[in-house]
């Protein structure tokens, strides 16, 4: 640093002999070390992600070639995982069905309906919801929400039983796919809302004013300017939420008492488990091939969430490009 004055115009002035000879290599070494440390960290992340995939494949390998009889259920690995995958998709799908419209409404409320000061506080409250540990949602779902659903599900069975979803018999404990879906919906609400809210906030004021100046009411303004602008974020945010719901473990593990195969019946005790919940429930007691089988199911879950998340990111990033071009 002592030679900073001499170095101020390195192009114009010949370096005075002596000093820079000592300074330059040191700073270059620092640069090199620092930039390679930074690059190394970045590469490490790629390695970790590749490692996650590789180790899971290695550990899952024995399960893929195991005899059918050795797999729990005795019908082979595919028929073991398939009901779990079905349960995972079913719970996540209904969670999304509940959460997505709510998330759009909340994002609209925060960005365009609530008074500004209140809106900031509300945004914070929603973010807080994201920080609540999943185990708490599980305990809450089981002890608070599940009993509340017993009456309504009985009503659903009596009056809407002709729909396969509500075929029944209605559970007397409330430990149903419906409750699992609602809990998941509550859990993915914050992330979905956050993405959509962000997009709604970025709606160009110009476009909002353009529709208002034409004599649009607030809702008409939202339909003309805000929703078209946020459309891909609504899709992207929902898919991110879907990814979360697919991988959520503890809440489902606590709420569901898995005892059935594939069924669309949302309100009965007999329901499939999900991949993640099944791992959490069985892993601590397993050994040998059973562990490999569970890891194989985890690999399937990994692949599914990876696909969903990549699709979600692609959609969101496309919006970013689009709005940047404007």
């Amino acid at each position, binding site marked *: 640093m002592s030679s900073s004055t001499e170095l101020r115009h390195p192009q114009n002035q010949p370096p005075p002999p002596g000093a820079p000879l000592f300074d330059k290599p040191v700073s270059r070494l620092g640069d090199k070390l620092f930039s390679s440390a930074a690059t190394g960290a970045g590469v490490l992340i790629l390695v970790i992600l590749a490692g996650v995939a590789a180790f899971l494949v290695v550990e899952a390998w024995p399960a893929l070639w195991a005899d059918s009889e050795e797999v729990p259920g005795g019908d082979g690995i595919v028929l073991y995982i398939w009901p779990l995958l079905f349960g995972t998709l079913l719970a996540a799908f209904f969670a999304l069905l509940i959460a997505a419209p709510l998330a759009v409404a909340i994002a609209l409320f925060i960005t365009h309906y609530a008074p500004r000061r209140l809106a900031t506080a509300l945004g914070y409250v929603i973010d807080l919801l994201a920080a609540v540990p999943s185990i708490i949602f599980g305990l809450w779902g089981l002890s608070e929400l599940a009993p509340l659903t017993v009456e309504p599900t009985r009503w659903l069975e009596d009056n809407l039983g002709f729909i396969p979803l509500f075929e029944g018999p209605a559970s007397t404990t409330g430990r149903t796919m419906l409750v699992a879906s609602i809990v998941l919906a509550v859990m993915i609400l914050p992330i979905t809302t956050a993405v959509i809210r962000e997009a709604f906030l970025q709606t160009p004021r110009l476009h909002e004013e353009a529709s208002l100046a034409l004599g*649009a009411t607030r809702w008409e303004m939202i339909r003309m300017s805000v929703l078209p602008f946020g459309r891909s974020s609504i899709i992207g945010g929902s898919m991110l939420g879907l990814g979360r719901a697919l991988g959520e473990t503890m809440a489902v593990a606590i709420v569901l008492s898995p005892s059935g195969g594939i069924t669309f019946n949302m309100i009965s005790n007999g329901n499939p488990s999900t991949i993640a919940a099944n791992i959490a429930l069985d892993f601590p007691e397993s050994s040998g091939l059973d562990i490999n089988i569970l890891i194989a199911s985890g690999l399937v879950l990994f692949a599914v969430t990876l696909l969903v998340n990549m699709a979600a990111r692609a959609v969101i990033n496309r919006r970013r490009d689009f709005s940047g071009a404007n």
Partner: protein
Amino acid sequence: MAKRIEVKDLDIYYDKFLAVQGVSMTIEPRSVTALIGPSGCGKSTFLRTLNRMHELVPKARVEGKVLMDGNDLYGAQVDPVAVRRHIGMVFQRPNPFPTMSIYDNVVAGVRLNNKRMKKSEMDALVERSLRSANLWDEVKDRLKRPGSGLSGGQQQRLCIARAVAVQPDVLLMDEPCSALDPISTQAIEDLMLELKEEYTIVIVTHNMQQAARVSDVTGFFNLKSIGEPGGLVEMDETTRIFSTPSNKATEDYVSGRFG
């Protein structure tokens, strides 16, 4: 269609901050009224109170009266949404809806009020609006293409077409040419001279030559001093304002001795 606007003792606030004070003026129908003045003197703020866009800013409010042919725009029973339907606005930067086609942009405002309109009527309206914005010949072959694909000047004329499509009484223009090149500016200025046959036009501009070229009446806005609210200094026929204004500050400003 054109209507007279009378403003009486209008004070404009942002919360507790008084931005513009004591404006009174009469805006004649079938004429172009230009509002000029240095940055931050409240021209645009004033313009936005004429169609009640000002109150979109939280806690913004006005005191005083704005009358359109005798009806108080700030009366108790007046719906701000209906006011904006009668008084159209063109913004500083062209803002066609990016997700809509040219056609849909033009009828965007019309669709709000007229749910069931025949296709042929709609087509006629689009053609008429685009013609009155001098844009028809340029876009008639690509009405279904997105409006954002047009050049800046074309986009601004599309916005004018969108504003006149709802057949307003008054057209407000907030520096409509400031984002445009000279040729596009020329096109918009020509358009203004045609539109004033049918509408009352109020334009805010930074460009004094533009005010001199297009307007019949010019109002000069200024801050009394730094930290004071802005206000209307003088309003007169444009030729008078630019030749023999009665106020010293106006003369300084129009002759470029300002600031």
